[in-house]
């Protein structure tokens, strides 16, 4: 054994294989499609009548930090929601291992189309355990949507603005993180009737989406992620609208399987814990392709500057 040169470095020379994505854990969706459950929102993911989804400090998580991830589950997203579902359970561990957030609390939600879908909005609780995966399993993948490029993102933004309460902001002045993932754009207004029907609030009038975004940005850093392999990846109108609403926080993701790396890196940059010079290397090491790493870096350099 005297001649053996022990090192773990040589694994770098091997071709990287993409990590396996595991089982299809959209259990509730499967139950609906096989007729075992009614075609409706799972009770625990139903926003109707919910006063607040709360992210709170506790003995186990003394410095909780809210991270919300809501993604479009309509047909235009094609196979991407399943990819997101398979990977998102790993987000919490990645944030902790990277040292970006010590106590992330993650909320999972899904966005449909209020004009024609059975489940236009699904929102879980802020969680820091196995419930994150369970909430992902409770999502119903709508697969519908209208024949246009609008979905009910504005309802999700409204819910997050008015029906969440997060200690990281309220106690420490640190904004939470909100990621909206999808290939379409919000309707121009949060419609009074839809809010009443889906969330249960009585509004005096419909609200312009810009007003809701401004309200939301008081307590959250809001990002939009446009993933590749969706119907509107190349549609300039989609990108343009999100840039109008969120400016540099409109991101593009070439490899949907790298969603956790993108979210984690974005948070790392915002928390000042990622050196932008090394971001591309970090992402490549994290299994993203060189192109994705560069694309993510390009998006995030804008954010960081």
């Amino acid at each position, binding site marked *: 054994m005297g001649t*053996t040169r022990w090192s773990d470095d040589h694994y770098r020379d091997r071709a990287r294989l993409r990590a396996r994505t595991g089982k299809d854990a959209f259990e509730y969706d499967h139950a609906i499609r096989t007729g075992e459950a009614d075609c409706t929102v799972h009770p625990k993911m139903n926003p109707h009548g919910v006063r607040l989804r709360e992210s709170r400090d506790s003995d186990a998580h003394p410095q909780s930090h809210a991270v919300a991830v809501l993604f479009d589950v309509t047909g235009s997203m094609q196979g991407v929601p399943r990819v997101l579902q398979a990977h998102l359970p790993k987000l*919490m*561990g990645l944030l902790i291992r990277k040292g970006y957030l010590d106590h992330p609390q993650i909320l999972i939600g899904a966005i449909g189309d209020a004009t024609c879908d059975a489940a236009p909005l699904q929102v879980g609780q802020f969680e820091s355990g196995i419930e994150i995966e369970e909430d992902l399993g409770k999502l119903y993948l709508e697969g519908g949507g209208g024949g246009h490029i609008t979905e009910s993102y504005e309802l999700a933004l409204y819910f997050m603005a008015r029906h969440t309460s997060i200690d990281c902001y309220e106690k420490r002045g640190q904004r939470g993180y909100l990621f909206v993932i999808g290939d379409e754009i919000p309707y121009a207004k949060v419609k009074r009737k839809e809010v009443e029907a889906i969330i249960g609030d009585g509004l005096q009038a419909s609200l312009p989406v810009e007003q809701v975004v401004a309200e939301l940005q008081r307590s959250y850093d809001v990002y939009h992620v446009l993933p590749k392999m969706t119907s509107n990846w190349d549609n300039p109108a989609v990108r343009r609208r999100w840039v109008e609403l969120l400016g540099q926080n409109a991101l593009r993701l070439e490899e949907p399987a790298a969603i956790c790396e993108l979210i984690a890196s974005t948070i790392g940059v915002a928390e000042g814990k990622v050196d932008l010079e090394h971001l591309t290397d970090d992402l490549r090491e*994290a*299994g993203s392709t060189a192109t994705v790493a560069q694309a993510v870096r390009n998006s995030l350099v804008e954010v960081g500057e």
Partner: protein
Amino acid sequence: MNSFTSVLSWLCDGYWPLADEDEELVVRIRDVRHRYTPLRLLASGDTADIHLAATAEESHTAMETLYLLKVAHVPEGNSNLDMERKALRTLLSVAGNTTYRDYLPELVDSFRTRGRLPQRINVFQWKAGFSTLEQVHEQHPALDGRHLAWIFKRLLTVLGFVHRQNLLHGAVLPCHALIHAAGHGLQLVGWGGSVAVGQCIRNVPARYQDWYPPEVQQQRPASPATDLFLAARCLIYLAGGDPVTNRMPDAVPRQMQRFLKTCLLESAAMRPDDAWKLIEDFDDLLYALYGPPKFHKLTLT
């Protein structure tokens, strides 16, 4: 003799050294076409025995020509050894002459004895200088974070390689990880419980039953995250913590504790499942904690 006893755990849990040679076994093994001469029965377990042996042609005392014979003595033992043979043949063949080979026990021969009740025998090259993590723990009940660092990285290196062959070790436990203290090396042995990714792990050593993650306890399919879970528990054990409750002593840096706990989440889907990605993250952590890598000597007697 201490170095010989480090192999006591090669098969699985429940081995103990025997004082006397088993003459009957010696005769039986001599009788086959493979001419290994057992010198001493080192250990005996529920399903198989481990003998120190030499080939008939070679000196019985020269350390470099010694072998370890794993001999099944019950039918289940035969199937375990068969699985070990298949897994190692695959892994050694893929490893070729790369350094991955050093992380695996050198299977030099495997055969069935003749007769009415044939026994599977796996033969390994004996190598000096290795100690099981159990032996390390005995001498260093609370290993320093710098040593945990290289041991974990070596474990992740070999697991990353194994997982890319669509295999799981299935029993990454202190009795199956041997370290080479002088060279900071590691060998993963005891492959009788290995399964393909997605299969259920059924060979669980009784002594370590509590260490296994929920997917094994509930007989659900195992994944690379299962091996990584057990690897993290080995580290807690070496650190002087409680691998069953995941409690770690205060001497383990907080960041390292948090890191390990992400490998120990209840849900396999929430845990990391790529050992090589994990090394990258671990390297970043180590750099932040200890600065550039340095060699830290681990003394074992």
